[in-house]
């Protein structure tokens, strides 16, 4: 790697590290690009050669975290036992545990995904194909196991679960709820949804 490229990569890492820490310590809105540059020990100008805006920085910070979260999931998910509800509970518990370590990042990320002035390069919250795939796989296994009826619209279930998962973070935002509390809320929602997915006895009329 040429010197220039190496420098650019180093700047990128320092900026992202500084931004991640500041967004977590004082909040996303409260953090200025100048403050990030200072913490990273670089000039504001060099920040803007790598990132187009503060929102772009946030989206890169979140993108970098995805690998770490995926690693944690990969370590646990293949060894999960129990019914579909139990497995889903465990999966989301890992998500909550991970994100709640720096919950302000997640809150800023999900808020930004609703902003009318969204960056075109951002992968908005909720569109990560790997995470979505994991949940679908669990539901497919559930069909094989007989927990989940074969005619269930899995995409629909996925969206419903993701909605509940995301909106539980309001508890963190408004009441300072921790990962345990969010997981407990999600568990109840999962029980409700999975109850509705149970195969119906033959001759049952209704959805």
């Amino acid at each position, binding site marked *: 790697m040429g010197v220039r490229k190496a420098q650019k990569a180093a700047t990128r890492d320092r900026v992202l590290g500084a931004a991640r820490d500041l967004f977590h310590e004082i909040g996303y809105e409260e953090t200025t690009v100048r403050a990030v540059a200072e913490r990273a020990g670089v000039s504001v100008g060099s920040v803007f050669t790598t990132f187009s805006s503060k929102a772009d920085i946030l989206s890169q910070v979140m993108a970098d975290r995805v690998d770490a979260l995926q690693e944690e999931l990969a370590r646990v998910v293949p060894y999960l036992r129990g019914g579909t509800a139990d497995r889903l509970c465990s999966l989301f518990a890992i998500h909550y545990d991970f994100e709640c370590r720096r919950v302000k990042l997640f809150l800023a990320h999900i808020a930004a*995904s*609703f902003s009318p002035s969204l960056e075109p390069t951002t992968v908005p919250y909720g569109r990560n194909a790997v995470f979505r795939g994991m949940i679908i796989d669990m539901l497919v296994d559930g069909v094989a196991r007989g927990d989940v009826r074969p005619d269930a619209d899995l995409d629909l279930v996925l969206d*419903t679960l993701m909605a509940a998962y995301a909106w539980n973070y309001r508890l963190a935002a408004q009441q300072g709820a921790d990962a345990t509390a969010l997981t407990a809320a999600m568990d109840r929602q999962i029980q409700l*949804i999975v109850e509705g997915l149970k195969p119906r006895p033959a001759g049952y009329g209704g*959805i």
Partner: protein
Amino acid sequence: MNHIPMRMIASPAVRPAKPTRRALAKQRTREKVLASARQLFTERGYEGATIRDIAKAAGMSTGAVFASFADKTELFDEILGNDYALLAEAMTDASESAATAHKALTDMFAVAYRFHMDQLPLLQAGIATSWTRTEAGEKRNREALKPVMKLLSDALRGGVERGELSQRADLRLIAGVIWDVYLANYRRAVFDGWSADDLTSRLSDQIALILAGAKA
């Protein structure tokens, strides 16, 4: 004997106040500010619209704005509150004659989706702020949503009474998930260009799924 003494009727405490010219002017200012604010919030989102710009668009000083609103959040919350009041009325009409809980819920949210699709950016800004609201803002928001939430729980209670849903169903849990899913669907409009009808159709299926978990 119930007659009220004349001197009490004549005293200022009992006489209905006539709106003074000053009060009317203040009301007009408020309305102008709310109108400009709504437009700017819709165009630029919550962060993008400043009090200075809103004041300018309304043709007044920032001081005049602050005379009516303590801060930007209060202003934004009032706009949303006004919308929810209107929406609650429309949703009530829509769900009144529904024969099942599923239909009542689908119909009332169909109204909500149509209402907000006209001003999607404003709705987006409203959702975006739900993760950064202060305690006071959260209180205001809960108050503003009360009539809508009541409609939601009434529809579910009707379902229990009619024997569609289990007596043991946790209605609060169900209402919460339905509301979460209703809001989350707006992302399809934002990112995938879905119409109000598309959103309603999707939500209808999701409500059926959720209610299936609480069948009688």
